[in-house]
């Protein structure tokens, strides 16, 4: 069995080191997201880690939890959320964390996303948004900027894109945040909050894909330039409220958009219903 010469202690403690180095490209943002999640668990404590289950869709982001030394289910494209719903209903005591890509969650999985939000089921979704379909080689996604050139929009993308936060707000999600991989500490704190949060939480992470988005869309194939771009073009939510539409063009609005606790969490609601029926039976 091959042994690594060295790995960060978080990797040794929480990851399947026999599978490292992971398959992500050099400079890929997913590695940073993995670290943010593991740091969040390091701070939340062993008890939270012990009762966490990971589910993921298909795509680059789908491989994220397969490297964690914890139960991980690498499910079908777009169908991670219904599977996670089954797990949460059967074992409401578990933390269910779902990793999905932008195409996985908003294209093929769009229906399941809005229904999971509608039900407000206690799942933490981390949507890795690199604005493209990266694993298949750089095709159009519902989040690709207008007029971009990708492999399936060789004459320019003419589809406007989704704002995931607005979509989730309308569908009923109860904790919403958007960060980029540059905002490491804020991302880690949001992950902690989302795991503790009872209802359906969505953290959208704008993550760098230097290989495709970097080369095709932003013309920044170096991950360092890409991260600088994310830093320079991020605007905090509170500040963005004061700015007008013209100023906000091309900017990434980050922050915690929503944190409400007035909607009941679905599995809790269901189990309280059963207890009544069991007594009646």
């Amino acid at each position, binding site marked *: 069995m091959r042994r690594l*010469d060295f790995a960060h202690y978080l990797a*040794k*403690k929480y*990851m399947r080191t026999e599978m490292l*180095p*992971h398959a992500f490209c050099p*400079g890929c943002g997913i590695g940073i997201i*993995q670290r943010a999640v593991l740091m969040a668990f390091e701070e939340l404590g062993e008890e939270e880690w012990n009762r966490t289950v990971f589910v993921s869709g298909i795509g680059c982001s789908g491989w994220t939890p397969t490297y964690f030394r914890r139960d991980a289910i690498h499910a079908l494209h777009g169908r991670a959320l219904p599977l996670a719903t089954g797990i949460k209903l059967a074992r409401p005591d578990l933390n269910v964390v779902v990793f999905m890509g932008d195409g996985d969650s908003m294209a093929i999985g769009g229906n399941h996303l809005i229904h999971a939000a509608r039900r407000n089921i206690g799942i933490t979704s981390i949507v890795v948004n690199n604005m493209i379909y990266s694993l298949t080689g750089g095709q159009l996604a519902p989040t690709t900027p207008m007029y971009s050139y990708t492999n399936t929009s060789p004459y320019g993308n003419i589809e406007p894109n989704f704002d995931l936060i607005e979509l989730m707000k309308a569908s009923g999600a109860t904790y919403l945040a958007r960060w980029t991989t540059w905002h490491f500490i804020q991302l880690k704190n949001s992950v902690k909050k989302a795991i503790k949060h009872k209802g359906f939480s969505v953290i959208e992470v704008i993550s760098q894909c230097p290989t495709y988005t970097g080369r095709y869309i932003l013309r920044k194939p170096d991950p360092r330039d890409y*991260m600088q771009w994310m830093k320079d073009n991020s605007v905090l939510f509170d500040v963005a409220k004061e700015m007008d539409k013209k100023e906000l063009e091309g900017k990434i609005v980050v922050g915690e958009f929503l944190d409400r606790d007035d909607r009941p969490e679905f599995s809790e609601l269901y189990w309280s219903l059963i207890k009544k029926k069991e007594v009646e039976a």
Partner: protein
Amino acid sequence: MKVIEIRISQDLCKGCFLCVWACPYKVIDVGKERNYRGVNVPIVAKLEECRACRLCEYRCPDFAIQIITDKDVELLREAEQIELRWQRRVELAEEMEVSE
């Protein structure tokens, strides 16, 4: 906080240089030697400048760099115990493969 050393993994580093870019004190620099992947793994240029801000760690996607202080030695030791425990399963699976 005394920084004992900065460990960088030759096996894990993919040469994205986000750590070099992140460091505000120019502690790390691009190395001269290439690893098995063909990338110039970063080297520690000025250890004395390191304040353990850990920005390099936060930017590294590959878990390939760690600032080692006294606390980190302890954390690494604990983590290695856990890693060792789970090696058993990988070894068992590989035994099964060989015996097929």
